[in-house]
């Protein structure tokens, strides 16, 4: 039980208008303390469902999941979640948004002021504390949401395609920023993305999910130097890893198509 995140054959079937959807099937995953793991797979493979299951907001149908040795049954303080969108509250200023979790947890804000300011400085948002979300760019909003997730110092970060809604340039910037924060804070991170390049750049290991119902396909150990040297993303080795993961995904999709089980979810996003 040394793993910080321990997922044991979790399954999720949820009801939809077109009948039950079998989103995740007996998926297992282990993440050690301080590890950075990415989960990739074709669109609609259930990777988001998996992550939401781990948040405790969206219980699994079968199987068990543990975070820090405790069974995932409700949202816990040790876990921080970063959503697809910044999801800031539009009626609150940036600083009020960042303090929101502490308010809900009824923490004494005084003890956090300095910590919050350091976090705000580290994502280069100082000077914008009094701004409303509508006055901030998408990248700034998402940086604020990262500070919000870190405000109460959770040990684990669950990230659901956090930079998916940003433009390509901002996304790369955010990836670098995230790695810096990870190095500094030593959090354990599970990161869902459909961009293989992003997964390879960020993570120590990449879990590949099969098309729906998503189950374990392969795990890739990313053997690239840390900290990631500049220009790594145009390095031959980087491309080889990315290509291999893409091949795995395409192969999984083809296999399912042959067996007739493939539930038409575009896989063009990975090819």
């Amino acid at each position, binding site marked *: 039980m040394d793993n910080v995140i321990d997922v044991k054959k979790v399954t999720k079937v949820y009801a939809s208008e077109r009948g039950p959807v079998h989103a995740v099937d007996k998926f297992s995953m282990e993440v050690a303390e301080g590890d950075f793991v990415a989960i990739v797979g074709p669109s609609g493979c259930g990777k988001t469902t998996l992550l939401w299951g781990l948040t405790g907001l*969206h219980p699994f149908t079968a199987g068990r999941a543990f975070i820090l040795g405790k069974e995932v049954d409700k949202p816990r303080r040790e876990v921080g979640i970063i959503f697809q969108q910044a*999801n800031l509250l539009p*009626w609150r200023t940036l600083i009020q948004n960042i303090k929101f979790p502490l308010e809900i947890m009824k923490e004494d804000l005084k003890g956090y002021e300095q910590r919050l300011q350091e976090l705000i400085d580290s994502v280069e948002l100082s000077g914008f504390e009094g701004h409303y979300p509508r006055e901030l760019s998408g990248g700034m909003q998402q940086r604020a949401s990262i500070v919000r997730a870190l405000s109460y110092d959770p040990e684990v970060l669950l990230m659901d395609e956090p930079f998916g809604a940003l433009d390509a340039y901002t996304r790369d910037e955010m990836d670098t920023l995230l790695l810096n924060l990870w190095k500094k804070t030593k959090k354990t991170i599970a990161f869902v993305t459909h961009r293989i390049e992003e997964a390879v750049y960020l993570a120590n290991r990449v879990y590949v999910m099969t098309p729906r119902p998503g189950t374990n396909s392969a795990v890739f150990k990313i053997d690239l130097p840390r900290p990631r040297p500049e220009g790594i993303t145009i390095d031959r080795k980087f491309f080889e890893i990315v290509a291999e993961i893409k091949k795995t995904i395409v192969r999984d999709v083809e296999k399912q198509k042959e067996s007739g089980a493939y539930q038409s979810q575009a896989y063009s996003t990975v090819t």
Partner: protein
Amino acid sequence: MDVYEKQLEEEIPEFEESSHEQQGGFDISSTVSAVKIHGWQQVLGILGVAVIILGGWELLVHIFKVPEFVFPAPSAIAVAFVKSFTNVFPHFLITLSELVSGYVIGASIGLVLAAVLTQAPYIEKIITPYILILITTPTIALVPLLMLKLGFTIVPRIIAVALASGPMVMINATTGFRRTDLAKIALAKSYGASTFQIFKKIRFPLALPMIIVGLLVGGIFGLITAVGADMVGGKMGLGNKLGYYSSLARMANFFAVLVLVSAIGISIWIIFSRIGKKWASWQE
């Protein structure tokens, strides 16, 4: 547990930026921006128009020698206003207290019902037609009946005001409380928020712009009903004075009372525009 919290267990919210768009009702921002004064030029412009209208009115009445019982000049109205003030002021206070008491009762019930009923969609669906009947039936029509039962006191008028403003507040607040944003509720829940915290920190602020619209419209409807109820019977209230002066063809006095009535209406509007500007401007 809240219905929306339950929904969350079955459904991963979609992150739609458009989920804060207005859904029905009218947009408070138009009333808010209308009251915004961009410097002295606008004030001067508004005053200028007032001078032209009042001056023209005064001039036309004098040129065509319109008798006062047909159409009084602004100057005559001003004189009547000052002269009759001590006589009319108690009636102003009566109408104001009818309005305020009825409104506070109606709006509170409307708000609480909206907050509770949106938690129980089935009951809400059953109750909505009755609320619609209350809205579409002018409650002023009930006043003679109420007076028959309760006498020519202030009580039936307060009830009428409550019946007029309550449903208005309720229907708008309901629209507000229905603007649930699952993603924001998920956010609060992920920090372990209780149902009450979710209501206080997510659902209420999200509903606030529509609640303010409801309070504004409810206030205006309450005023209409209060003045109307005064007219139906009894010997008090601004509505009663309007009927009294018009029956005597004392039109200068009639208009002087009208000035007080519209002063109440304008005050309601200014109060809620200010509140809207402060608490609902985030969605502009």
